[in-house]
């Protein structure tokens, strides 16, 4: 393989991995706090992409504005999902909320088919993002640079919130002991809502960039990226934000590089991720950066 080809694949992997990572953060944060795998998260990602599409196509919003509005709306959707489908089940066995999340996932997908129709839509890509530049023999899409940078900025911003702000401190406390956190006077439900809002905003950012990079959206576009980001979160160690980013990047690289080096296997592309999931769960269920299961009392 030529160097140019490798750079090309490297950039593709970096983009894909960043997008997985952004979605994976939402899984990992919700899991960290509620011990819930939010299966509707992939559909939240899809909504982000649709909102930006409708913002431009229907409301004729300037491109940048429609991105901001889409992220806000998606965050609101995430908060609503928690309020309607998970919060009433806070005291119920964990499996109930899990099943509820599967229900929400189906609901969002089917509601999207009804309202958006199942016809795939093409997303308008601003020229400065979508125009290919030839540098040597490398075809450079500005998105391949923009996506990792935006992802890095968003992730840094999130880490700042989690480690440097008061709600972030409350989030870290809730993840260990929700009852004692309530005794500190922390409005736990509001902090959980903030968590869903942040996770959904990142998923929206990912969905929007996904739609720009692979410019076609449809109501099921969130299913496979959602599952893969979930695998990325498990790979990195579910509950760990840094782990989710790392897991996302790793998964992106594994996927792209296997196909790059073994083009014959490209038909099995989606299968790699799931095989990987099985392997991690067998060998190292706490993931690369996950917290150890034992705990000092």
């Amino acid at each position, binding site marked *: 393989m030529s160097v140019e080809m490798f750079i090309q694949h490297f950039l593709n992997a970096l983009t894909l991995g960043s997008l997985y990572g952004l979605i994976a953060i939402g899984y990992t944060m919700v899991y960290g706090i509620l011990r819930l795998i939010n299966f509707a998260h992939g559909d939240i990602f899809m909504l982000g992409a649709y909102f930006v599409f409708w913002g431009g196509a229907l409301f004729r919003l300037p491109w940048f504005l429609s991105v901001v509005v889409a992220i806000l709306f998606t965050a609101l959707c995430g908060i609503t999902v928690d309020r309607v489908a998970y919060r009433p089940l806070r005291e119920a066995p964990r499996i109930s909320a899990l099943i509820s999340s599967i229900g929400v996932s189906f609901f969002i997908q089917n509601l999207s088919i009804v309202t958006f129709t199942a016809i795939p839509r093409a997303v308008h890509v601003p020229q400065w993002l979508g125009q290919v530049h030839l540098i040597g023999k490398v075809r450079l899409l500005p998105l391949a640079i923009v996506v990792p940078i935006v992802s890095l900025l968003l992730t840094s911003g999130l880490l700042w919130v989690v480690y440097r702000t*008061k709600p972030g401190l409350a989030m870290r406390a809730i993840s260990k002991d929700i*009852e004692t956190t309530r005794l*500190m*006077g922390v409005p736990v439900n509001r902090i959980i809502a903030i968590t869903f809002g942040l996770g959904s905003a990142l998923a929206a950012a990912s969905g929007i960039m996904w739609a720009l990079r692979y410019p076609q959206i449809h109501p099921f576009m969130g299913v496979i990226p959602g599952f893969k980001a979930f695998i990325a979160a498990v790979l990195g160690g579910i509950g760990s934000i840094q782990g989710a980013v790392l897991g996302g990047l790793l998964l992106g690289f594994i996927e792209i590089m296997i196909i790059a080096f073994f083009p014959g296997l490209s038909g099995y592309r989606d299968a790699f991720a799931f095989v990987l999931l099985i392997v991690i769960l067998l060998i190292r269920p706490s993931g690369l950066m996950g917290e150890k299961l034992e705990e000092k009392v």
Partner: protein
Amino acid sequence: MLRVENLDVYYGGIHALKNVSISVPRGKIVTLIGANGAGKSSTLRAISGLVRKKGKVFHDGEDISSSSPEAITAGGLVLVPEGRKIFPHLTVYENLMLGAYVRNDRSGIDETREWVYDLFPRLRERAWQKGGTLSGGEQQMLALGRALMSRPNVIMMDEPSLGLAPLLVKEVFEIIAAVNAEGVTLLLVEQNAFAALRIAHHAYVLEVGRIVLEGSGEELLADGRVREAYLGG
């Protein structure tokens, strides 16, 4: 300051608290003693809104019977839970800041933290250490310090001496007396009846979910039934 009237708590079919009424006057230490499973912890958990209850709770004249734990803490009535329950993955400093979560006055919080550090110099030394690395006694100091951070007027403590070496137990009770001397009202739940009665102004004895005896600390220390049942004869 704190008044509990006709408290009943059920866990499924189990009637854990039966018509419990207690009263904690301003500035005093009141203790609730009793054997394991008598309902001491349930009483505190019911007062702080963690378990569902029947009956009335008044704090500072305000009816808090149906308030959430968050609101009760914000109102100045704080529970130091059994087992201390500090956050092991957060630093001592962060634990204290969580205790001050209900406050927004930055400089006031810094002041209170300095006061807590003066009260427990060990916490100042270990401010940047993870809570989980502290010894049992230090964790108890942190739990109490964390409770003080919200500037409560009533603190409820559930078994502060549990699992501590005898020397530390003495220290903890000295600290409790010191906190009380600062004007904080205390409701103390203890299995170590002797130590608790010695510092308490008033005490209640709880037996299988019911108050069976009450009196001043000295009265109960001298009471034959109490001596036999809780003080080893």
